[in-house]
């Protein structure tokens, strides 16, 4: 019976559920979402591709193309950590709605 007072109060309060997708969460800074690449600052040192735990990044130096397979990515942020440029070319954005109907869309090609 100890929970009765709280239960009655809760009956008349707003529920704790966030009504997604009408309401969206506010993400903290530093949230590790989808990985993005900035062509302008990249020096093609290949460190991000070498250090990726799942080998999700492929870089083509001649075509200056950089691709990440979001399906393989584990969103650990290591690519961002090892990137030597300032500001960093590889960042974790706060994009988290990443579902696709087609698996091939997971591989995102930047550059060209």
């Amino acid at each position, binding site marked *: *019976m*100890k*929970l009765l007072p*709280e*239960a009655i109060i809760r009956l008349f309060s707003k529920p*704790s559920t966030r009504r997604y997708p009408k309401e969206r969460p506010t*993400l*903290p800074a*530093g*949230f*590790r979402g989808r990985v993005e690449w900035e062509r302008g600052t990249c020096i093609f040192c290949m460190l991000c591709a*070498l*250090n990726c*735990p799942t080998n999700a990044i492929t870089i083509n130096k001649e075509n200056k193309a950089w691709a990440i397979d979001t399906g393989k990515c*584990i*969103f*650990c*942020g*290591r690519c961002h*950590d*090892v990137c030597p440029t300032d500001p960093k070319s590889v960042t*974790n954005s706060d994009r988290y709605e990443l579902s696709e109907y087609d698996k091939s869309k997971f591989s995102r090609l930047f550059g060209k």
Partner: protein
Amino acid sequence: MHDFLLPFGPQHPALAEPVHIKLRVDGETIIGSELVLGYNHKGIEKSFENRTWTKGVYLSERVCGICGHYHTSCYCQGIESMLGIEIPDRAQYIRVVIGELERLHSHMLSLGIVAWEMGFDTLFHYMFRDRELVMDAQELLTGNRVHFVMNVIGGVRRDISLGNAAKTLKALDKLDERIKHYLGVFRDDSSVRNRTQHVGYLSTRKAKELNPVGPNVRASGIDYDVRETGYFAYKHLRFKPVTGQGGDVMERCLLRLKECLESSRMIRESLYQMESLKGSEVALQVPPAVKIKEGLETVSRVEAPRGELFYYLKAAGEKPDRVKIRTPTYQTFHILDEVLKGHEIADVPVIIASLDPCLSCTDRVTVVDTKTRREKIMTKHEILHMRDGGRHGH
């Protein structure tokens, strides 16, 4: 009434993860049980052997979703001891803060599950709602609700800013109030008492014989807690293990709540003590291709939320030769036969939930060398000697 076999699992609404417990039942009374594990075997120990040490950190996180940080801490601690380096003080404090946050969320999850197994879904929902305070704090500090990957070899990846520390402390204030409320509920609510008192009793003598670890053994009066050895920053915090004498489900629940309060206190103290180390580095510069001398072995232990987590590492240059993970649930779960005997079917889910099993961690397979048929038993002295790569024997 003749007895029959009631298959509890592998698919069962009470179980979050697949495990098979064959219960021999006579009416409602359990006269025997048999545990069959192995449904969650992922082959992680083998996968470690194909990855470099740095990539292995990310793999070790994924052994378990609830205690991932402890796995990486243990793994990194082992590698750091083999390399003979000591991580900076600020990194040690941060490892403790994140670790204790994870202990908080794990205990709250476990208690919510116990409440649900009792048929008390109101308490389950309330506890999970309050657990969200911890999840939000974790997201704030590390960027993700689970799988933080805060540890790198040589320290931690991110620092805790003053703003984030203040927000975490505010969340902890709210959480402390709620945990004290739940202590009252678990202790005094007659509905809860009916289901948890004198259920699943493990005596001190049996606990010494069967050797479970973690809150399960501490609730039976034995104060065994690896944090007493003072790894990371625990040596600077006034840590004492929380024990209880009851040995039943209620005692385990109350013990976990008290541990939550203790964790919250330690996080506060760590954040406070960290202020004097403001600006110092959080990680040592370790070359990305970590090379460890071939043949070097070590043993690393931490106190995960469920008990003592134990990693054995054997090096072979850039990659490990062998990683053996002995998780706390692996050590604890075999007491099931003892604690289930003589109880009713109705008590089975409550008792299992009170042991707080994490079956993702548990399933390991023993590889026997059939060619040489060699078995090796190591003495305690030999194991302790392996710490720090054998450099400093304890």
